[in-house]
């Protein structure tokens, strides 16, 4: 494994622009595509951009997604919502755990991509391990946060009254821009653990792991459309994220106050729930918590009458 990584390090051969060849065999290069509704389409716009790493090396031709791609993703996410929210919490937990299992088996690929995107080998290993553990962490929460955030309310009348969390709906998120994998996973984990479906825009400059993570999701029994992953430029897409009438919640992780204000204002169009995570270090334990699940939950309270709570006498 290490050998492969080392080899690729010296021969970024994306984009058809091979810099150095260490073996005679011609590598088969991966086309990085979007992930929408369980499929891997190219952007409908036909556009691309070419992010580079710190050495100025080109990573790949990446889909420059358009408003239409986003709108298609929302349709897919909304279509998948009923089924995903209706799954038993335990079943969601099993599927999140399965995602972790799949990622564990493909560690090497992710480490390689992280190294391409300026990570050291040891940091890359740490980031992938942390991403796997974080998925296991949220797998565990799937059937537990309800027991923390749900309540039975001792109302003063003859009623049985209880409150339970339910998923908000379709969540649109812009992944943390400074990491390729851990930020993405830290946003996806709590949203889908809580039964939401989502659209997430990958890190603009470090998009490789997001696309590969889509492949992991696709082989993990996660129904198509639950997570839709786009690549492109936040500056271009954020307005469309916020103004879409079928998106219930928006997650934004950059500390840019002007964009934050813009998101807050535009979200009012259909009363989107807005969450900013600009100060979270996703590499620490602060990057995982059941309160991230609670961000994309609604609380539903049910009232039901109880006959003669005082106990005196039969109703007959």
């Amino acid at each position: 494994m290490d050998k492969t990584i080392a080899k690729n390090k010296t021969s970024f051969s994306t984009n058809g622009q091979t810099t150095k060849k260490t073996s005679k065999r011609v590598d088969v290069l991966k086309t990085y595509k979007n992930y929408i509704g369980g499929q891997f389409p190219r952007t409908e716009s036909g556009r691309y951009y070419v992010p580079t790493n710190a050495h100025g090396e080109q990573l790949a031709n990446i889909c420059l997604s358009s408003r239409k791609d986003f709108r298609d993703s929302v349709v897919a996410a909304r279509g998948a919502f009923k089924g995903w929210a209706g799954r038993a919490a335990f079943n969601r937990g099993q599927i999140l755990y399965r995602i972790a299992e799949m990622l564990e088996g493909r560690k090497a690929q992710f480490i390689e991509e992280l190294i391409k995107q300026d990570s050291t080998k040891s940091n890359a290993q740490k980031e992938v391990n942390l991403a796997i553990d974080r998925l296991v962490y949220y797998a565990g929460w799937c059937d537990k946060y309800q027991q923390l955030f749900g309540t039975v309310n001792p109302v003063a009348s003859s009623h049985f009254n209880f409150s339970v969390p339910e998923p908000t709906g379709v969540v649109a998120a812009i992944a943390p821009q400074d990491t390729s994998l851990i930020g993405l996973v830290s946003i996806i984990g709590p949203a889908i653990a809580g039964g939401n479906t989502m659209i997430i825009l990958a890190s603009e400059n470090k998009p490789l792991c997001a696309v590969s993570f889509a492949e992991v999701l696709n082989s993990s029994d996660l129904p198509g459309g639950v997570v839709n992953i786009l690549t492109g430029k936040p500056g271009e897409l954020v307005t469309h994220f916020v103004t879409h009438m079928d998106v219930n919640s928006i997650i934004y992780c950059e500390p840019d106050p002007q964009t934050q204000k813009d998101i807050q204002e535009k979200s009012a169009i259909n009363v989107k729930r807005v969450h900013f995570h600009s100060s979270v270090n996703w590499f620490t334990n602060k990057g995982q918590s059941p309160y991230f699940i609670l961000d994309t939950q609604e609380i539903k309270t049910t009232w039901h009458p109880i006959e003669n709570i005082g106990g005196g006498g039969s109703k007959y």
Partner: protein
Amino acid sequence: MPIKTKTKSKSNHTPKLKFNTGWEYAPAPESKSHIKLKDQYDLFIGGKFVKPQSGRYFDTINPATEEKLASVAEANTTDVDRAVKAARQAYEKVWKKMPAAERAKYIFRISRMIQERAREFAVIESMDGGKPIKESRDVDVPLAANHFFYYAGWADKLEYAFPNRIPSSLGVAGQIIPWNFPLLMAAWKIAPALAAGNTVVLKPAETTPLTALKLAEVIQESGLPEGVVNIITGFGATGADMVYHPDIDKIAFTGSTEVGKIIQKAVAGTNKKVTLELGGKAANIIFDDAPIDQAVEGIINGIYFNQGHVCCAGSRLFVQESVYNIVLRKLKDRIETLIVGDPLDKNTDIGAINSQGQLESIRKYISIGQKEGAEMFQSSCPIPKKGYFMRPTLFTNVSQSHRIAQEEIFGPVLAIQTFRTDDEVIEKANNTPYGLSAGVWTDKGSKIFNITTKMRAGVVWANTYNKFDPTSPFGGYKESGYGREGGLHGLSAYLKI
């Protein structure tokens, strides 16, 4: 199925299903070819199977055939001590110090491996304990795996479970489990104990040790550090050695109220923490506005599930007088359709009684019921000549003072009483030293909540019965024991909070 219609019906009888038409189910036995059983099992201590110091072994038999399945080591006082020492060492040196998220991963592994080997577990469970394969396959084994999965997730989340507390583990847990749900009870005990950071010495019941020993193999395969789980086999004396062992911090017992009381006394004056899940004599209450057919299925499931070897079995049926006749008729018809026989047959509804001793005990209660004046009805179904079998049985004309209405029979025997008003049935249902569970059947929601509020029982099923889930606490009021297993509440039994 042919329907016999009485054209000149004199009463209000609806068309009756006729069952004695000669149609029979072809045998559909589950294959035993894929299971691996050794002739002899040693004690699982410190991650290895070791010979017992006692030098003694006992046989575990298949109650459906009376054939020996394997011989199993009998742990004596020295063996118990070795197991506790192994657990203590694993606790101090490894388990206590391990980061919680890593602990979780081992428990997740165990869950996954049970799922992988589910079929083997199910077949062995049915062979060793006599329960129908459809129950071990669809209930016991999946629930056991799910229990591990659920509690695995809690391991690194304990500080969220108990606000404003920093929970810590207790140490070594001694766990004694019964023969009615051997693997499932092992899971109920081991999973929360490990998640909370304790190590374990577990003793399965003497008639059903095999799935626990197979679980020991899975645990070994999972790479769980040696000594974190130790599984020792034996009789009551082995259990007593555990209860009296000074280096055990926590006793978890599931079994009879009689033994539970002995344990409670025995640990008096020590710092041992105890949870007891004991007997029951649950009331299953059918109101006249209940969906009758559904209710009848619920009654059947409530009392005949697992041959009635269920501590929360709905063994006392209360039927509102106005629907008594129709409920009784439908119940008798339904009982006639139950298939009693080979536990490994996929069509079997009622398997073998767990042991000869238990069969004798059930027979004793049936003759007591008859002597005390209750009226018996039994299915006319054939039962196998070999093995321990009992026809599904019900008693009518039962009064509150009858022993079959007061004492736990732990077999497929239902005692039926009637009532007129809500208050009457609440009074009757609660008139028992037990308080494990209850059932209520009515289409009226407000009545459900009235009854569930008034029942002095730890689990109350409304329009359903015998439902279990890892997230849902289970345990009794009164002499059915204390402490809960399952859910958030099941964690606290294994923590200092």
